[in-house]
């Protein structure tokens, strides 16, 4: 009989939801009751919306429990472990009967996320048990040449997952062609798109797969040193990478003559980012690793020719690297069997925003946005109306509901004006104001512009001023045209991807939601009821209980009334700060 295992998901998202406490509770119960099961840790399986997750595997089957707080953990241990009576109500996924999330994995194909949530990320043994480091061992044992490795990656059709979508095999080939005694492999783990978290999840959940991907790249291009450039906001990822690196060194997988391959010397170090979005851009990243201000420079020369310390350098994204070992084990054909003509394999999307199941999904390229949102994502939260989805972060755009039959591949998404980007998918409903969203992104890129190019530095600021005006009830005739004009100027006259794409969120929202801009400018209305200066706050006499809370909190004394009598907001005094709206417990402040 196999021993029962209880596994707690301890990714950042799980921990934020309280999984640390859940784990402690179970550990204490196991000790005090002398229970006979194995308690294990894993990372995020992508079902972030049900965290904390606890999986129990016993002789009868596999049960995944969701929303397991400390109390539920106690109940589950009592019922499931002591009395062998699984609690159906708390089970979200199982192969034994109908459970609410059983269909979550159905349309998914897990290549990048193959190990995330299925093993202990702090154990190199578990990674190896699941086929880890077999790809590099295969290269060694079958004496596969560097060129053949590169050819396999070329044949697979893998394109960079960091946003650019450049052929990975091609990059490797270029880096291989530039000879030098020192060469570098860099893993871009800066994940700057605010709203994307797939890289974090892979780093936390399967750090060894990144190391293996980098080792294979190093083999292919004859690199001597590796660098993982990781955001400082991801402390857990950095911790687990460090553990993985130590384990790798201990086993001779990093260091000198690694894997017993004569002359193959390669080690990896972690470089913590210092908080600058532009450092995700490869030339800025290199400057940052060199200890300088992270300012992009002109290309060519490309990093493959002259990168870190002027040496040939290959930079790939986390997700790109995670694909590599799988491709070498399963073959280029297996990988290319997924996807569309020009976009092969799978893509991980981070679903967030107004979506019911927010989390991570990995789907074959070519499925539609609608399928992702409705089939996997379970549709829109609180039965609101789906309005748009933002893809590609600050460089991307908003795809409206009526284009949700667009398939996800690099070219189809680009055709809408958005970009695939890193795969952050922020879903918006009728309560999201598109002008406000455009303003949000522009504010972000304006702050993050390194300041080198005038158009990016000043142009984004001017655009933001116009958007500020529009959302502040001061929009003017001609503002939309001015925005467009500035947008094209910025796109044409910026050196790096940040400036070249910064206007995209504005351009796509103007393209698809021009009426919303016009409502703000000409009718001084915000249809989504987000932009406060365009709203009027009034008391709903039906709902107001006369509790005096809004009245006491109003900073401009614009509300009058008595206890137990309907209050009144004096419009001439109201500064539209929204305090009454957020303080009222009875939803009796209406926006119009």
């Amino acid at each position, binding site marked *: 009989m196999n021993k029962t295992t209880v596994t707690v998901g301890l990714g950042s998202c799980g921990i934020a939801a309280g999984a640390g406490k859940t784990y402690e509770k179970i550990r204490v119960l196991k000790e005090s009751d002398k229970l006979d099961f194995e308690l294990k840790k894993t990372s995020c399986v992508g079902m972030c919306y049900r965290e904390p997750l606890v999986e129990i595997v016993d002789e009868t089957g596999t049960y995944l429990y969701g929303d397991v707080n400390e109390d539920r953990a106690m109940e589950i241990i009592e019922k499931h472990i002591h009395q062998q009576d699984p609690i159906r109500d708390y089970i979200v996924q199982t192969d034994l009967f109908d459970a609410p999330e059983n269909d979550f994995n159905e349309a998914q194909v897990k290549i990048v996320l193959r190990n995330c949530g299925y093993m202990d990320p702090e154990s190199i043994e578990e990674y190896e048990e699941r086929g880890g480091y077999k790809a590099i061992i295969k290269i060694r044992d079958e004496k596969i040449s560097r060129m053949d490795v590169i050819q396999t990656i070329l044949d697979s059709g893998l394109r960079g997952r960091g946003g650019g979508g450049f052929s990975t095999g091609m990059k490797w080939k270029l880096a291989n062609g530039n000879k030098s005694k020192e060469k570098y492999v860099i893993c871009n783990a800066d994940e700057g798109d605010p709203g994307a*978290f797939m890289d974090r999840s892979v780093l936390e959940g399967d750090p060894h797969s990144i190391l293996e991907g980098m080792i294979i790249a190093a083999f292919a291009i004859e690199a001597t040193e590796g660098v993982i450039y990781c955001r400082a906001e991801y402390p857990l990822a950095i911790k687990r990478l460090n553990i993985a690196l130590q384990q790798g060194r201990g086993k001779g997988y990093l260091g000198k003559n690694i894997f017993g391959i004569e002359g193959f010397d390669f080690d990896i170090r972690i470089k913590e980012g*210092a908080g600058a979005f532009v450092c995700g851009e490869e030339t800025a990243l290199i400057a940052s690793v060199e200890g300088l201000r992270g300012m992009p420079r002109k290309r060519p020369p490309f990093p493959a020719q002259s990168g870190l310390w002027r040496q040939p350098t290959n930079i790939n994204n986390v997700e790109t690297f995670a694909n590599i070992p799988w491709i070498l084990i399963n073959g280029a054909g297996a990988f290319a069997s997924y996807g569309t003509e020009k976009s092969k394999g799978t893509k991980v999307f981070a679903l967030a925003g107004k979506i019911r199941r927010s*989390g991570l999904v990995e789907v074959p390229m070519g499925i539609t946005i609608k399928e992702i949102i409705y089939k996997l994502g379970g549709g829109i939260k609180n039965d609101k109306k789906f309005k748009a989805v933002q893809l590609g972060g600050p460089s991307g755009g908003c795809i409206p509901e009526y284009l949700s039959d667009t398939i996800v591949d690099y070219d189809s998404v680009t055709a809408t004006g958005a970009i695939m980007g890193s795969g952050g998918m922020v879903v918006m409903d009728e309560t999201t104001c598109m002008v406000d969203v455009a303003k949000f992104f522009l504010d972000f890129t304006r702050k993050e512009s390194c300041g080198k190019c005038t158009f990016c530095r000043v142009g984004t600021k001017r655009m933001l001023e116009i958007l500020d005006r529009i959302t502040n009830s001061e929009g003017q005739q001609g503002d939309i045209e001015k925005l467009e004009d500035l947008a094209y100027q910025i796109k044409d006259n910026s050196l790096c991807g940040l400036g070249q794409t910064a206007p995209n969120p504005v351009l796509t929202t103007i393209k698809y939601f021009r009426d919303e801009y016009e409502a703000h400018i000409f009718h001084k209305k915000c249809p989504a009821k987000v932009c406060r200066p365009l709203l009027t706050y009034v008391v709903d006499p039906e709902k107001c209980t006369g509790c005096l809370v809004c009245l006491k909190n109003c900073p401009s004394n614009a509300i009058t009334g008595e206890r137990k009598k309907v209050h009144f907001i004096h419009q001439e005094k109201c500064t539209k700060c929204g305090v009454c709206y957020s303080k009222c417990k009875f939803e009796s402040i209406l926006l119009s």
Partner: protein
Amino acid sequence: MRIARKNTKTSSWLKNDVNLSLLDPLIHKYNGKKGNLIPLLQGTQELYGYLPRGAFEKISNETGLELSEMFGVATFYAQFRLKPVGKHIIKVCHGTACHVQNAKEISESLEEALKIKDGETTDDRIFTLESVACLGCCSLAPVMMIGEQAYGKLTGNESVKIVKNIRLADNN
């Protein structure tokens, strides 16, 4: 443009009331290494919680790094601070997912409760309030992080409660 925390009050920054000898092992470790500037600043900030002016001068004198270059890097990256911070740093996420789920309310509630603005520190040096872009827990939006603990699915009132509890726990 990237000029981090430029509202630094220079007066407090000029005072050299920190023990600079703490820097010695750090300087020893990185002196002469290529690409050492950022790690030196990160190490300094780890020691003092911010980058004291005296530290710039000492590092520059002993390693030959240019003051201007150091200051350029320090103001470029959001991570570096030029003034002392509170014991707890509250990072309120204003990434996309949090933004569309009303992160503004969290910041406003905390600003009101702590009587400070974004980027400022309370007079008793207990809390510093900052807004950041994406903590990677977007599925739990809106999110804030205090120390290494992230808190998700917040409302304004809840965030204030969490902060009050931390203050209570500190006082005991």
